[in-house]
């Protein structure tokens, strides 16, 4: 092989190898830059006050950057969304994987893909014009922009993740498990309930966790329908504000290098770590199943 060709091969292979490791580099870079900006807050502000402070008043004097109400907001909306999407999503996954006739199955699967494809801001918009007014009249509250509205919309955003991963897990239960149950005279439902679901349980758990991860990180839709009031626990029919919505709503108004700017990056660090832990744990759960 001529020398220039060898050099070309060498350069190409080097590019391939560098790109292969790029994702590690990028994740590290994201964490580094969030931390670099977020750390600025703690020169003047104490970490416990940030994590456990009950007030988020970023522009009062002196400002307060307690993210507890934001954590509560995220938690409330997430729990509400999980309460809706986990039972529905798992049930739909079981139906699609085990019960639906094959044509309907393909149709439903495309439906789930369709739902996954709808942009968050479009779902937020639809939530504003349908769910929000409905909550206002149905519950007779002064505003429909509530934690409940956020939960409903986010439940739909978590659904594709939960349904498709749980469906995968159920689908990959070995056939002979089921055949064993049928051979013992079990009905299809008994087989699903007693054999298939337990066998697929770790996949279903991972599906739920990844769905929740999606909900925790969701930004636009939740910002559009929850009313964005940073107050402590009041209830599901009151406005709340989540961690993500706070960052999205306030970053535009901060001065670069101000405490407020640093504080929003500190929230970013918190969000990054939360989703990191959720994703790692979900992967471990999924991985254990394979062994």
């Amino acid at each position, binding site marked *: 092989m001529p020398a220039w060709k060898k050099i070309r091969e060498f350069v190409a292979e080097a590019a391939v190898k560098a790109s*292969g490791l790029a994702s590690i580099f990028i*994740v590290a870079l994201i964490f580094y830059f969030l931390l670099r900006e977020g750390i600025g807050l703690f020169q003047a502000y104490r970490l416990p006050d940030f994590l456990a402070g009950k007030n988020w008043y970023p522009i009062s004097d002196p400002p307060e950057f307690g993210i507890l109400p934001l954590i509560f907001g995220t938690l409330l909306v997430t729990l509400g969304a999980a309460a809706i999407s986990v039972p529905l999503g798992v049930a739909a996954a079981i*139906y699609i994987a085990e*019960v639906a006739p094959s044509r309907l199955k393909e149709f439903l699967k495309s439906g789930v893909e369709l739902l996954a494809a709808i942009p968050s801001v479009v779902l937020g918009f639809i939530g504003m014009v349908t769910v929000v007014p409905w909550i206002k009249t149905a519950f007779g509250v002064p505003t429909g922009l509530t934690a409940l509205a956020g939960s409903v919309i986010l439940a739909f955003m978590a659904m594709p993740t939960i349904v498709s991963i749980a469906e995968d897990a159920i689908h990959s239960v070995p056939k002979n498990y089921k055949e064993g149950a049928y051979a013992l005279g079990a009905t299809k439902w008994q087989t699903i309930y007693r054999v298939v679901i337990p066998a697929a349980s770790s996949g279903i758990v991972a599906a739920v966790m990844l769905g929740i991860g999606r909900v925790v990180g969701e930004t636009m839709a939740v910002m559009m329908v929850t009313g964005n009031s940073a107050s402590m626990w009041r209830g599901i029919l009151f406005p709340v504000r989540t961690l993500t919505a706070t960052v999205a709503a306030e970053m535009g108004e901060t001065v670069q290098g101000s405490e407020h700017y640093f504080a929003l990056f500190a929230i970013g660090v918190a*969000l990054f770590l939360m989703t990191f832990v*959720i994703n790692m744990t979900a992967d471990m759960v999924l991985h254990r199943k394979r062994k």
Partner: protein
Amino acid sequence: MNMNPRVTQRIAFSALLFSTLLVMVPVGMVIVVILKQGAGAISWEFLSQMPRSGMRAGGILPAIVGTFCLVLGAVCFALPLGLLAAIYLSEYSKDTFLNRIVRLAIINLAGVPSVVFGLFGLALFVNFFGFGASILSGSLTLGIMILPVIITSSREAIDSVPQSFREVSLSLGATKLQTIRHAVLPHALPGILTGTILGVGRAAGETAPILFTVAAFYLPRLPGSIFDQVMALPYHLYVLSTQVPNVDSGIRYGTALVLLVIVLLMNAIAIAIRAHFRSKKKW
């Protein structure tokens, strides 16, 4: 109490079907509502004119063009990088430990909240590199966001090319790189394309990553260079829905419809490519 198992089964299956419908029917409704309400607003003027009177009249051309620029930029960045990464993972990496770290990194990258990508883009591209709020910053941020989609789907496509093709190519005296280029990639192309288009759909619909990196609130002109700010469809819909009072609802629905059509079209194309090549797969 012991119920007849047949009856239990019927009840259980009905409940499962009902749950499935509860998931699916709203999806259909969302699309029908937007189609019905938005179709009236769509006209040539709406698609081809600048917004006027504080976005309460006129068209959405700059938002469409802006989204187009951002998506194009994101793909130009993410496709080469993602494809090379996929090639590395499928064809080169033997080190299983390193492979696992890369896999975990990709999983994490896929799970990072979209607004965190926005923060990252702000810190790195806008401020650190000094690109400012610009098409360049926004495209790079979106590109990093869709990288996991492209890596994962390209890798799947490359892995599904039979090992025998590689052996044949090598045995005919091709180098490893030639083998990848001529005996593997051409046959992985449909899968790579599918993943890329799905990534495009995702990038076109995302708002949070472009909030602080590029999106302009109201900018009724077309961009002149990659260092310009632009309007973008998803952000425009957000602005119309929450920041501008007294907007004719037709404009909102129309904007939502245009965005939805672009995103769903991308997905439909991806699904069609996948189905087409699956049906005529020759090995």
